[in-house]
């Protein structure tokens, strides 16, 4: 194994007689393949620390005996090093001042530095090495390589150095000018990828903070009721969508809302956050769903940015063994009540979408939820889900609900979700949200 690696390294970096045309061609083509492979492997990762490891694992042992990659982050130099046959080691040291060490100089000037460290006592050698390998624990892994050829290449992107690649070989294996050029080219392409990965990690962190606020909330514990929800977004790589649900309140008086803002993806998700907040605020003023929708509509019209939202809002109150539902809707699919007997009722609440017309009035419809009954709120992503020949549609939803389980709201929601997934196959779809509330008072 190690002799094969050695030969490979010789192939990649060994000087070749300029007269040996065939060997030069072979080496050029190996180098080109190595570069292409490097770009593909490191580029796929998209995860900052993993990308660093991939760079090191690419270089050791195929090209060099030892490699270190340092990245400057917030006044700290994060160092990662890999010795042939070992795992990646990490250490952090204060960033060097420009020009005070090989590493600092290489990064400040953006120029490669090649040195042979061989003479003097072990202390002198260590001092010389420290200039390129500042973390003592990483320097230890170099102890077995004496004398040693050290090549330090800047990592630059967007016009500035953000780190450096330090490569070590046993002296004698060496780095000739062509090998240095090849490794500089490699470092150049790796630097761009690493920089992109770091930028991506930054924006991902920002997005993560924001999206935690916009993602569907965890369902609260509601005395005497069981809740279940299903949420699937159209743009799965974004994990955020324009459908939303929320349920809040306390003791025996709750407000549930399920809605769908126009558009998809992040822009839509931002709007869902505003609507959810408006509903929460309105519910503090007047708990009637009709009045909540009226207030939210007025807020949206006043903002006047031309966006609109469909929603269904319900107030859920305990009345003995029953739950009393007051429901108002704004251009949204009507919720279903699934009775323990298997009957399926549509709650016929209707109203204009939110955000379009000033002073729209909505009406509350009252429905009792007896012990064991479930009300199911959903968005039109359910009904509109495309299948091979037709949309999912109301008939299929009825059939799934009527032939499916009834006595457990989690099972009810999951059964619909499974049927939807089967129906959708690999087809693109709209955002989908389902919220189920079951009266879990003991059946009389």
């Amino acid at each position, binding site marked *: 194994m190690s002799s094969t690696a050695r030969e490979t390294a010789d192939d990649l970096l060994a000087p070749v007689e300029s007269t040996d045309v065939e060997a030069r061609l072979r080496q050029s083509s190996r180098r080109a393949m190595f570069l292409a492979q490097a770009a593909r*492997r490191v580029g796929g990762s998209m*995860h900052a620390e993993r990308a660093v490891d991939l760079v090191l694992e690419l270089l050791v042992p195929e090209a060099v005996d030892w490699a270190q990659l340092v990245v400057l982050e917030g006044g700290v130099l994060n160092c990662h090093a890999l010795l042939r046959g070992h795992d990646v080691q990490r250490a952090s040291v204060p960033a060097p001042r420009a020009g005070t060490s090989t590493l600092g100089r290489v990064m400040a000037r953006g120029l490669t530095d090649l040195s042979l460290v061989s003479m003097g006592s072990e202390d002198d050698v260590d001092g010389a090495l420290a200039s390129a390998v500042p973390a003592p624990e990483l320097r230890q892994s170099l102890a077995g390589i004496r004398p040693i050829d050290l090549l330090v290449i800047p990592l630059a992107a967007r016009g500035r150095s953000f780190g450096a690649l330090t490569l070590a070989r046993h002296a004698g294996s060496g780095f000739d000018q062509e090998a240095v050029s090849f490794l500089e080219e490699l470092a150049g392409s790796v630097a761009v990828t690493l920089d992109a990965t770091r930028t991506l990690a930054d924006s991902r962190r920002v997005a993560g903070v924001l999206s935690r606020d916009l993602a569907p909330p965890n369902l609260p514990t509601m005395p005497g009721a069981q809740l279940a929800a299903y949420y699937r977004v159209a743009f799965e790589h974004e*994990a955020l969508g324009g459908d939303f649900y929320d349920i809040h309140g306390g003791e025996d008086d709750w407000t549930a809302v399920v809605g769908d803002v126009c558009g998809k993806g992040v822009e839509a998700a931002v709007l869902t956050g505003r609507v959810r907040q408006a509903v929460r605020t309105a519910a503090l003023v007047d708990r009637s769903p009709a009045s909540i929708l009226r207030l939210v509509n007025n807020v949206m019209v006043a903002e006047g940015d031309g966006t609109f939202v469909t929603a269904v809002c319900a107030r859920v109150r305990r009345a003995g063994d029953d739950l009393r539902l007051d429901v108002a809707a704004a251009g949204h699919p009507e919720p279903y009540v699934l009775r323990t007997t298997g009957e399926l009722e549509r709650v016929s609440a209707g109203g204009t979408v939110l955000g379009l017309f000033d002073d729209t009035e909505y009406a509350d419809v009252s429905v009792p939820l007896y012990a064991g009954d479930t009300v199911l709120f959903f968005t039109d992503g359910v009904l509109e889900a495309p299948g091979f020949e037709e949309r999912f549609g109301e008939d299929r939803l009825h059939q799934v609900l009527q032939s499916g389980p009834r006595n457990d709201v989690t*099972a009810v929601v*999951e*059964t619909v979700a499974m049927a939807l997934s089967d129906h959708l196959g690999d087809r693109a779809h709209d955002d989908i949200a389902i919220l189920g509330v079951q009266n879990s008072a003991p059946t009389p």
Partner: protein
Amino acid sequence: MNAGVGERSSADYLDALSRGDRRAAQAVVERLRREGMSPLDVMTQVIAPAQYRVGELWADDSWSVAQEHAATAVSESVLAVLTADTEAPGLSGAPVVVSCVEQEWHALPAGLVAAHLRAAGIPVSYLGANSSADQLVRHVHELGPRAVALSCSLGASLPRVRRQIEAVRATGTPVIVGGSAFDPAGRRAATLGATAYAATGALAVPAVQGLPRAVPPADPLVHPGADEAVIVQAEREAIAANIRRRVFAAHPSDDPVAETSGWRKALTDHLPHLVGAVAGALVADDATVLDDAVTWLDHVLSHRAAPSGLTDELVQALAAELREHPVAARLLTRA
């Protein structure tokens, strides 16, 4: 715990499933947990056998589709609670992402793998059932995991396994696969480009420990039939619809609701899986994927008063639909 208690609990659990009663099922599990049974043992000794039995009861037409769905949904929700119980907050480092292949809803094998890995001190990020390739890759980008473990139960899902292996390996991340869609020797897994294969949940532990940290992108599939797999997979719903029409026309019924029950309903629901199994056999370069699917469907249909010889008819209809695809056609002649 003695065997008697175990049997009683298993019977109680299956009874709760038969009624689709999540709270009763949860209560059985909580009782066992209080008696000191580990989440892993509850999964392997109670839930797994019960779900296996549910599959049999449905296949034999002893249980309705609704009962089977309710039971499965209950087990999945019980399993979700149980898998959360296996979480070990002290574990640090790059996790293994554990997931079912997309469009598979049976999270049990993935839950078992997660529990085994956590018990061995390996951190896990558990995605559960039905993760799409997009969701999976998003998690890989966010977490930089040391590996992705994919569970696959159905032969018809193998083309999706291949797609997810390609997506994950493109990030340099190793992929372990396991589940009943694979052969015990791991030949299908190797063909599909998995980095490693775990024949059981317990074997996922050494498989993870033996993984390389980074892997190159998956090589393209070049075996005969690999291209046909892509075409059959893309066309599977159209192919299934054609066969269904042909078979229903050959066996007309005066009963207007015939198509919503009995063998016709089972055929409608499972033909896409049969066609998917052709794509699965092609992509994994293994004819037995199709044989298994045919045997299973034959069992299901024969318990639903299907006309005799219906399975042969289906295979012939499938062969006729796929006559322009030589490798698929050979598979079907063999089946």
